[in-house]
């Protein structure tokens, strides 16, 4: 940590106090607000959301990863460490959010796109700043103004469901329709909950500034925040979908944290104003923490079918030459699934590159076999499939590969 860092943090916090003085949360003020107040209602909603998060299928159960993320949060917000409860959710979108009761979600799509600990520290500092300055209370009040419309719509949905349930024959049919209606009501409720994290642009800019200050005060690289936001914008520019490419802002699934050019420029100015000095990026620590999850998270990302984005992401992850077997395999998977002109050749090249790396998954050789067979290269197909079976003797598709080998032998091709 540099000697200037505490002063910078203090200055940033004082600056924020000019706009948020009445709302700055003190570290000892974690006591529950009066339930009769709107803030008390917000806490109740946060409690419910946290209780649901604990049961969600997407909750990542790895205590080591969760402990690591919480540890970084505590580095940038030491005075609130006792109040922060981190939940890593395996959702392939860039998002993090912190509720006023101290419950914080960090999504795998964010962890996959953050490339070092300094970038994660900036994001967590940003979220902590929303928390410290009660930004969600303003959003909650705006959401409550919209709540009348939402409640009215919920009532329409429920009444329509009840009427339909009464009008069809048989209990099973009635349950079927009512289940569907209940799912709709859930969607409306979740939309209302999500809106508590729909911050204003001013709040986002403030959280950027304070998050920057917190990360720098903890000794992290000052350029991390701007670098991350630029990377997100670049990734969006590589999207297969025109709507994603042309949006000014990069948005999460709930559009809670739009990243605009103005926000990037502001962070670059803050970073450039910092004197040069020794800082920590924590890249090796960060990669070691997420490495056990890389394969699963990349598979989730592939299922989004935005292949341009995934390729850009893989290139960023491969920048330092780490995990070459897995990343080249995933590159091959993008080309295999995309099936564009020339993608077979690109996939073959990627799988071949992966096969030269010690961390290549066995599936590399199965895919090589399939591509060689498709190209009529039977000897190469046989060799690749044999290599796959040797590397994955208990694979569930062993019989299928063996059948393919027998079919090749029957064909009599060399």
């Amino acid at each position: 940590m540099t000697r200037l860092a505490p002063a910078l943090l203090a200055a940033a916090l004082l600056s924020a106090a000019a706009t948020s003085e009445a709302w700055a949360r003190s570290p000892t003020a974690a006591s529950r607000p009066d339930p009769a107040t709107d803030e008390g209602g917000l806490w109740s909603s946060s409690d419910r959301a946290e209780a649901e998060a604990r049961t969600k299928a997407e909750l990542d159960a790895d205590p080591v990863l969760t402990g690591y993320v919480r540890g970084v949060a505590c580095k940038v917000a030491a005075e609130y460490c006792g109040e922060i409860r981190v939940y890593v959710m395996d959702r392939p979108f860039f998002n993090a959010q912190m509720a006023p009761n101290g419950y914080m979600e960090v999504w795998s799509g964010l962890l996959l796109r953050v490339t070092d600990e300094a970038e994660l520290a900036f994001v967590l500092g940003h979220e902590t700043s929303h928390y410290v300055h009660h930004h969600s209370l303003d959003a909650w009040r705006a959401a409550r103004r919209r709540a009348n419309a939402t409640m009215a719509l919920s009532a329409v949905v429920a009444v329509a469901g009840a009427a339909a349930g009464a009008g069809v024959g048989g209990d099973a049919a009635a349950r079927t329709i009512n289940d569907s209606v209940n799912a709709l009501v859930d969607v409306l409720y979740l939309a209302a909950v999500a809106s508590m994290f729909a911050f204003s642009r001013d709040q986002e800019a403030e959280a950027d500034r304070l998050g920057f200050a917190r990360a720098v005060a903890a000794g992290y690289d000052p350029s991390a925040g701007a670098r991350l936001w630029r990377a997100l914008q670049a990734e969006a520019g590589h999207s297969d979908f025109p709507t994603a490419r042309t949006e000014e802002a990069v948005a999460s699934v709930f559009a809670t944290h739009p990243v605009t050019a103005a926000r990037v420029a502001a962070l670059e100015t803050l970073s450039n104003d910092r004197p040069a000095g020794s800082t920590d990026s924590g890249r090796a620590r960060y990669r070691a923490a997420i490495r056990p999850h890389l394969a699963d998270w990349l598979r989730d990302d592939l299922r989004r079918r935005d292949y341009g984005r995934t390729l850009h992401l893989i290139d960023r992850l491969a920048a330092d030459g780490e995990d070459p077997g897995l990343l080249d395999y995933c590159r091959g998977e993008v080309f295999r699934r995309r099936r564009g002109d020339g993608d077979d050749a690109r996939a073959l090249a990627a799988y071949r590159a992966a096969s030269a790396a010690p961390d290549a998954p066995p599936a590399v050789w199965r895919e090589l076999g399939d591509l060689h067979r498709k190209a009529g290269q039977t000897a190469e197909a046989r060799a690749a499939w044999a290599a796959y079976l040797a590397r994955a003797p208990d694979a569930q598709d062993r019989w299928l590969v063996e059948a393919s080998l027998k079919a090749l032998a029957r064909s009599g091709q060399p």
Partner: protein
Amino acid sequence: MSAPRWRALACAVLLAALPACATVTLAPAGPYAVGGQSVTLGRSWSDISILLPGRPKNVRLLTIDGPLLNRLYIVDGLADGRALASPAGKDPPTPRWRSDLSPGEQVEFVADSVAAMGYQRVETKDLRPARVGGVDGLRFNIAAKTTGGLDISGVAQVAESGGRLFLILFLAPTEHYFGAQEAEVEGIMSSARPGG
């Protein structure tokens, strides 16, 4: 309110109006035709295809206790470029059937389609050969979770004939509901005869 949220609410209103004109029909025990494909139901089911978002052609949805407790998809010859799960929006696209998929990619197509329906942590296991009418096919089990964390079990049978997909897919909560209908579904799968 953002444009996507407006669209979501508009969709919710439209879907809410749907049940008023929905028709749930009985699928009685015995031979049951789905397009050109025939299966034999061992007991009566309810045909709730009307609840399928977008009502994809060639896809029939049956249930006994409601779609959250058991759902049986019978797909009659899905053509090139068609989806099992209709897209909820323009982005991202849902998985599309391709007539040149390898057997492994056929399994991947089903798993990705189940994920596109909103299930989490979709995995396939126990891949095994199956004979579907006179066609070589595959059968495999599925493990997944609902977003709420409920364990889901499934079994799928795929066969490709004339470049089209003939699929039977059963999904139900692992606790009680999957096992309660597993034998019935195995019987339905064994009885399947893809159409021409």
